[in-house]
């Protein structure tokens, strides 16, 4: 029972932390953390190929029944953070894209003074 609570608390804390972090930070540090995370993930993937039962051992230590369940949980967290990061990156991209498009629109628009002294066609 106690062990189940450990993994539950841990998972919820990780989810909240990941989401909170990704919401607030977009700078070099956030990028570095993401990259370190990716390297650790890759290294661990290699290790778990060599020692397939490593997940199960970690799972037991954390209070999860099977290694596959732990992998699933990790995947959920990873996917969630990926979603949020991607959303934020697209938003930043969109902001830049909007500025660019607006600049083009404004520089191609007739100047407000062009029509002065003109008689409106309506």
């Amino acid at each position, binding site marked *: 029972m106690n062990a189940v609570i450990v993994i539950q608390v841990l998972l919820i804390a990780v989810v909240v932390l990941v989401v909170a972090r990704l919401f607030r930070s977009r700078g070099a540090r956030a990028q570095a953390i993401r990259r370190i995370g990716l390297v650790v993930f890759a290294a661990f993937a290699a290790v778990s190929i060599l020692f397939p039962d490593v997940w199960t051992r970690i799972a037991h230590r954390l209070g999860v029944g099977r290694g596959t369940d732990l992998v699933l949980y990790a995947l959920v967290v990873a996917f969630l953070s990926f979603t949020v990061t991607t959303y*934020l990156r697209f938003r930043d991209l969109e*902001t830049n894209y*909007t500025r660019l498009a*607006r600049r083009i629109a*404004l520089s191609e628009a*007739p100047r*407000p003074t062009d029509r002065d002294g003109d008689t*409106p066609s309506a």
Partner: protein
Amino acid sequence: MTSTPTTDDVWLVVPLFNEETVIADVVRDARRTFPHVVVVDDGSSDRGADAAAAAGAMVVRHPVNLGQGAALQTGFEYARSVPSMRWVVTFDADGQHQVSDVLEMLELARSQDLQVVFGSRFLDDRTTPSLMKRVILRLAVGYTNVTTGTKLTDAHNGLRVMRREVVEGIDITQNRMAHASELVAQIGEMKVRYAESPVHILYTDYSKSKGQSLWNSVNILVELMFR
């Protein structure tokens, strides 16, 4: 020229997206009172921008579709480049808004030295939105009031009058529907003198057929939460 001294410093900003059938009439009608109308064509696929230009509006064309919030911001930046501009009015392209309401809002702003006047559908009983729409709009304004510290009755009304210094401080980054709340939030932060004025929104068959789906309120909420 129909311009009078009282409307010569007013710029109507009209975001346009695929409203070819009505935009010319809307522009012509507005220009009987307001000589300066800037239509921001948001990458429409129809020929509405040409119709607007023919009707006498200054037309700024987004090369691609960016969203109504982006179109408003473009219109603001265009109007800001006019030194004689003193007021900006945001006005919908679909014919829901009345020029007479704008005149009343300007009168209110000038007489009470207000910097912003928001149009509201709920201050009198001329406008009759459906029950569902009413509920959603009330929830939306409740959310906006709580998060922005303003006290409004109708935050998602496209009709607004803003004085130059306010327009200069506005920077809308919410391209899509959440821009209305963002605008209110930025105005709220500026601590300006604002009021609401009753306006009549015409729910014609045309505007109903184009009307935003209520699902949009979900999208607005998400866009606001993840900003």
